[in-house]
């Protein structure tokens, strides 16, 4: 009897599939899944980017909105509690700094002429004005830093416009306004539809007076209830509350259920 009888040689190892190859396949698969879901190959799979509309229906829409925010006229939010201590702190400093340099200078002129005195007074007045300006700026800065900004507009005094606006007119973009107006007229519950990723593209035609003259679906959602709700929203807003003449005549509007539910 030669060798260990319990070890069978050459029976399996040659035909047995190797783990290394399977490991490489698995690694490739994982990398592919990662690339797909990270959005590096197809950005759409990483999550649909929903459009954000900043629209204030109070301000009339304009064709070329300027940079700013579409909210109504800037709301001045006064917070005296935050402002007052800052002002109190800064005011005595101003008085001190204003008075301290003046007193030694008043003692110095013993025999200068009237013209020199007048020049000095003028220079002092200029200095005083500059200090006042600096104090006012300091006050503003202190008030801004002490303000609670969460949940409020970041820049309350921003001009009326659109965040991405590059035009020269004050007011929200007319396209964004129309989208928001139509959305306001649109009513549909998520329980009425079977899917949440429904959307439809509609071409709307208006006349000068802002009356709807025609509309047709460029893309239907495939859900009859959804399409009916879009149709009723369009018909409900057949007269736009805009002054004549209305600029846009033919507009393609996308009705997205996710936007509505948001």
């Amino acid at each position, binding site marked *: 009897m030669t060798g260990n009888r319990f070890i069978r040689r050459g029976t399996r190892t040659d035909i047995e*599939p190797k783990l290394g190859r399977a490991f490489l396949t*698995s690694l490739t698969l994982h990398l592919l899944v990662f690339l797909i879901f990270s959005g590096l190959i197809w950005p759409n799979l990483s999550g649909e980017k929903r459009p954000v509309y900043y629209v204030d229906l109070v301000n009339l829409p304009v064709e070329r909105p300027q940079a700013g925010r579409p909210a109504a006229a800037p709301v001045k939010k006064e917070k005296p509690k935050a402002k007052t201590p800052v002002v109190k702190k800064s005011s005595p400093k101003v008085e001190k700094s204003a008075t301290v340099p003046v007193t030694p200078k008043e003692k110095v002129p013993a025999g200068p002429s009237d013209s020199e005195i007048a020049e000095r007074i003028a220079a002092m007045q200029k200095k005083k004005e500059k200090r006042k300006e600096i104090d006012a700026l300091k006050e503003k800065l202190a008030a801004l830093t002490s303000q609670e900004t969460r949940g409020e507009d970041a820049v309350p005094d921003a001009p009326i416009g659109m965040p991405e606006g590059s035009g020269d007119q004050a007011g929200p973009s007319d396209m964004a306004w129309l989208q928001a107006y139509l959305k306001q007229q649109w009513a549909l519950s998520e329980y009425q539809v079977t899917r949440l990723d429904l959307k439809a593209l509609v071409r709307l035609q208006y006349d000068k007076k802002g009356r709807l003259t025609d509309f047709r679906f460029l893309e239907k959602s495939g859900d009859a209830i959804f399409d009916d709700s879009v149709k009723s929203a369009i018909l409900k807003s057949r007269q736009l509350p805009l002054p004549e003449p209305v600029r846009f005549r033919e507009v393609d509007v996308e009705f997205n259920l996710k936007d509505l539910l948001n």
Partner: protein
Amino acid sequence: MDLIMGAGPVVKGVLLVLVYFSVVSWAIIFLKMKTINRAKKDSEAFLEMFWSKKRFDVVQQNLKEFAHSPLTVLFREAYHELARSQRQTDDDEAFGIDMRGADNVARALRRATTQELQRLEKFLTFLATTGSTAPFIGLFGTVWGIMDSFRSIGQTGSASLAVVAPGISEALVATAIGLVAAIPAVVAYNHFVNKVNLLSGEMDNFSQEFLNIIEHMGRRK
């Protein structure tokens, strides 16, 4: 992607471990799928061939065509053992050949069955380990992430959603990936164990049939 990059070092470590578990699990799944499918296919073909032939030496000559079947190994081992017993019996005719030869073949068959089962079940324990531990590892990452997130709440002094939500969502990624690693591993483990059990049954049946044939042969002599 942002969720993973924004996670803390401990959560990232946990994610790495889970990715390792997942990659190795899938490698084993691919490997076993190939091995077991081939074994099943070749076994069916071998049995067909085995019952169609009337002589063991003819069957022995065709074994190479069914190399992936565990039954071919059983047959080869039994055949060699039978040949050895017969040689010994020819040398020493004083002993009865039948029962001693059959016992030897039965032992050879049992040994071959055990060895083949070990081969078929190789790496399956890793799938079971992944299935049972990956969710807990993920949970550990989540708990750690939530602890971090609560610490940041304490530091900022704000319990608003803006402070709490990102930390918790980053932490929950660990549990999600733990489940992603564990679910296929558990499903594959159960599937392969079932297939191996079927093959084991086939091997047992074949062993019994083979022993029966030997006994019949012995009686005829």
